[in-house]
């Protein structure tokens, strides 16, 4: 089955950035170049005025299944992914039960296959039950299909456990992803510690909570030579330390989420639970540092940390509302704001969503090279739209960006050469 995508501007970071056509054959990229001819029987997609990009890769998503299907299922999460232009997502293991073994990994892959939409790459737990005590069976997890390890939702509190994890994971060449939070410092906190928390009478999580753990993890990465990936960085201190570590050759990659480069703690005013997440929205100074980190490559990747919750769960007192916001269906439009602000070029934004995340986790995705899987995202760079949570494919409505007017929207997504969105 052949598909020809014609007349668009192809942006394949590092390879192509200009008007070109893309020919797909049997689910793989067959050719990229101007003026391609459609073979007989090929489906033709006219991409005039649109950009043709590699399908986006999200390294940090919570699909909630098994165990929390009322918040999201693999099927609804995959639908949300492709609606947002994501053809590959890595799902975190903080399900119920926790994905610390082969059976759960296979269950997730089965559900993903049944949904037939985005590629789902499971992330296995670092410790059994994510309890932070005993290492999970990394070999088992890798064989079952996990592409990385994390106890996300929680940090690995015990430094010895983290050390062993980084060391042991080397045998399987798996990146170890840590959610950097010192739970002693953050205990009882529900937003960034600072003036806004003081005014609102809410207990804050200091930036130091993240800095302390980033520092520890970098030291351990250096000690062990393991592959460290730092989830959702949010503070100036974290960015500074990662920059310094990278300059000395430490093996670390880092991600940042749109809400951490577009919103500050001010978004939480009026006790807006849809702006409550962990790590929390920080100060203006931290936001500027995250942007600078994206600009100079200290932060490699844009990820969403898509974390759906039921509406009634978020309609609670601020302290009781769960942490987390959705992000798959808004990431592209929000990432383009960085272009508007002159922080990144279009090609850099695309890279942060495609080639760089793929490289960070060693996935053969995020590229339109000949022979690569035909996962593509077609976007309309001029489309103006308003974020309306009621229209989300995700079950979650918890976004801090409701009502935002964005420019640039995903119009079509292909996985393995098949149109999966709309």
């Amino acid at each position: 089955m052949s598909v020809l995508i014609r007349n668009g501007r192809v942006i394949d970071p590092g390879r192509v950035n200009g008007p070109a056509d893309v020919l797909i054959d049997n689910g793989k990229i067959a050719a990229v170049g101007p003026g391609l001819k459609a073979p007989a029987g090929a489906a033709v997609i006219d991409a005039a005025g649109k950009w043709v990009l590699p399908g986006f890769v999200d390294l940090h998503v919570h699909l909630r299944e098994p165990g929390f299907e009322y918040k999201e299922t693999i099927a609804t999460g995959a639908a949300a992914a492709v609606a947002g232009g994501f053809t590959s997502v890595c799902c975190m293991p903080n399900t119920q039960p926790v994905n610390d073994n082969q059976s759960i990994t296979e269950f997730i892959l089965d559900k993903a296959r049944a949904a037939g939409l985005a590629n789902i790459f499971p992330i296995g737990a670092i410790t059994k039950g994510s309890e932070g005590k005993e290492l999970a069976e990394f070999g088992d997890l890798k064989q079952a299909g996990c592409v990385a390890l994390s106890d996300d939702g929680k940090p690995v509190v015990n430094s010895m456990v983290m050390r062993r994890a980084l060391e042991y994971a080397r045998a399987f060449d798996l990146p170890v992803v840590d959610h950097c939070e010192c739970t002693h410092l953050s205990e009882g906190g529900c937003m960034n510690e600072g003036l806004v928390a003081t005014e609102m009478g809410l207990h804050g999580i200091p930036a130091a909570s993240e800095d302390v753990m980033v520092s520890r993890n970098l030291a351990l990465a250096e000690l062990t030579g393991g592959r460290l990936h730092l989830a959702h960085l949010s503070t100036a201190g974290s960015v500074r330390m990662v920059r310094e570590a990278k300059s000395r050759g430490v093996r670390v990659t880092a991600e940042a989420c749109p809400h951490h480069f577009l919103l500050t703690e001010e978004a939480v005013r009026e006790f807006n639970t849809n702006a409550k997440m962990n790590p929390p929205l920080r100060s203006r100074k931290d936001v500027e540092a995250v942007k600078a980190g994206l600009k100079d490559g200290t932060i490699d990747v844009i990820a969403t940390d898509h974390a759906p919750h039921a509406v009634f769960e978020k309609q609670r007192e601020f302290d009781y509302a769960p942490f987390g916001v959705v992000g798959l269906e808004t990431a592209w439009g929000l990432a383009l704001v960085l272009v508007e602000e002159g922080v990144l070029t279009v090609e850099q934004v695309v890279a942060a969503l495609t080639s760089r995340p793929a490289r960070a986790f060693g996935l053969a995705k995020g590229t339109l090279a000949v022979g690569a899987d035909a996962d593509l995202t077609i976007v309309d760079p001029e489309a103006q739209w308003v974020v309306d949570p009621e229209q989300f494919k995700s079950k979650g409505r918890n976004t801090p960006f409701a009502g935002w007017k964005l420019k640039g929207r995903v119009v079509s997504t292909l996985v393995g050469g098949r149109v999966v969105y709309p």
Partner: protein
Amino acid sequence: MSLKRKDLLGIQDLSVEEINLILETAESFKEVSGRDIKKVPTLRGKTVVNLFFEPSTRTRTSFELAAKRLSADVINFAVSASSISKGETLLDTARNIEAMQADFIVLRHPMAGAPNGLARMLRASVVNAGDGGHEHPTQALLDLYTLREKKREIKGLRLAIVGDIAHSRVARSNIYALTKLGAEVRVVGPPTMMPREIERLGVKVFYDLDEGLRGVDVIMMLRLQLERQGIALFPSIREYSRLYCLTPERVRLAAPDALVMHPGPINRGVEIAPEVADSVSSVILDQVTNGVAVRMAVLYLLSGGK
């Protein structure tokens, strides 16, 4: 001019005009409380529900009296007494109450922001009677009223608020109210009880009680709230008391006619020496009387036809 609002959630977003309006209206209601027949028919047929998730005889009784003197009907929900303990959410509880045609819900809750959430979802008027460490607007209003009675002008008045500022809603509401009206506010306490960047609210921070009290016209002592603290913020009550207890010697550091206030109830010997406590007691009684008048004013001003 009137309060064009449905709810009273905090002092932070009240304008100076609105604060003055409430205080002036409270004057008229204080007169009503001085009569033989302490009732006016103004809120006849309205229903006021006291929804208290934290124990508080004082504030609840004050609101109850205020509502009754306005001829409203009052229902008291204490947490354990209803389905709240069965795990019903705050929102569901409040909706059930509203379905009984409540016109006002007076809410005291241990979580900051609880009244804000309710106010958005309910038609009834929500009055914040204290939400976690956030605000306690009617307390600040009655403190202002009492101060005006005793000191005439708030503008230029020098005040020290002493104690666990970080966890105190009374401190926050008073800081907002007093700075809006032009008073000079100092906050005094151990560094572990001082909220981050509090000086950006227009107050001066002191860790030393003696320094903080020098020359002030009003000393406002906060209650040490052991129930709100997790990991100890100070090593022992003994040390706290030695450093921050208001003794007669320390009172002498303030202006000669300095007023000592306390939101009550007092921990004698911990925050205030027993000898000082009795002078405080008389102001506390004024605060109690004024509390009913201020709450009557708030209920009246929020009750405009909707």
